[in-house]
C-alpha cells in the first residue's frame, strides 16, 4: 500500500513525529511504500537543521533525514507554516524541501491512505 503521512506537531514536545516515524519504519519493513511526509503547523520544526538534542536522546530531525534517504521518501515542509515559524532554506536540514500545501493535497490524491499524526 502507498501511504502519505501528515505531521502536525513539533518534535520532543509532542509524540506525533515519533509515532509517525515508527509507523513509517514499520510500514516500510512490511513492504509498504511511504511516498511523502508533509510537515504542517508546528510540525515544520521537525526540519530544523539547528536541532541539537542531548547526546543520549534520539535525534528526530536526522532520523527522518536518514529514513528518507534510505527509502526515497519526499520530506515536504509547508512554506506558509514554515515562514510563520522562522524555518527557511538557510536552516532547513538536508533531505527536506520547502513547498506548498498543494503537495499535501496531491499526497491525499495519489496515496491509498493519508495518515495524520497530531492532536
Amino acid at each position, binding site marked *: 500500500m502507498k501511504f502519505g503521512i501528515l505531521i502536525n506537531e513539533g518534535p520532543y514536545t509532542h509524540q506525533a513525529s515519533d509515532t509517525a516515524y515508527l509507523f513509517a519504519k514499520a510500514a516500510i519493513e512490511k513492504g509498504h511504500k511511504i511516498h511523502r511526509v508533509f510537515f504542517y503547523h508546528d510540525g515544520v520544526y521537525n526540519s530544523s537543521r539547528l536541532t541539537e538534542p542531548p547526546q543520549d536522546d534520539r535525534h528526530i530531525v536526522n532520523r527522518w533525514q536518514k529514513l528518507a534517504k534510505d527509502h526515497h521518501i519526499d520530506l515536504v515542509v509547508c512554506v506558509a507554516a514554515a515562514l510563520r515559524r522562522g524555518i527557511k532554506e538557510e536552516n532547513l536540514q538536508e533531505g527536506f524541501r520547502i513547498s506548498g*500545501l498543494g503537495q499535501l*493535497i496531491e499526497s491525499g490524491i495519489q496515496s491509498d491512505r493519508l495518515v495524520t499524526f497530531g492532536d
Partner: protein
Amino acid sequence: MTEATGGIEMEEDTSGKVKKFLYVNRKAPYGTIYALESLEVVLIAAAFDQDVSLAFLDDGVYQVVKGQHTKGIDVKNFSPTYRALEGYDIEKLYVEKESMEARGLKESDFIVPMKIIGAQEMADLMLSQDVVLSF
C-alpha cells in the same frame, strides 16, 4: 510552481482524479492556530477540483459563529473567509448537532448556511470519504 496550487504543477498526474476530501475542524478559532491553518489548506485544495466537504465538531463549531470580534486579542478575524468558500465551489458545510446544542448555539448563529447533522450521520459522512483531514 504557482501560489494558487501550492507548489504543484497541475499537469502532474493528479488531473482527472477526483477524491472525496473531508476537513474536520474540532478546535476553537482562536487560542491555537489550527483553525486558521486548516482554512488555508481548504483554500489551496479548492484549486484541485476535488469533492470537498467541511465538518465542524466540538469547539470547532465556534469557527463559523457570526459576529466574531478579535480586536481585543490582536489576532486577525478570519471568519469572513468562510463566506468566500461558496466562490470556490465549497458548499458542503456540516455542523454536528450535538456539539452545537451543547454550546447553546442554533442554526441562525452561523455565518453561512450550515447543514446540521447528528453524530451518527456525521460518522456515516466520515465513512464515505476517501481522505479525512482533521485539524
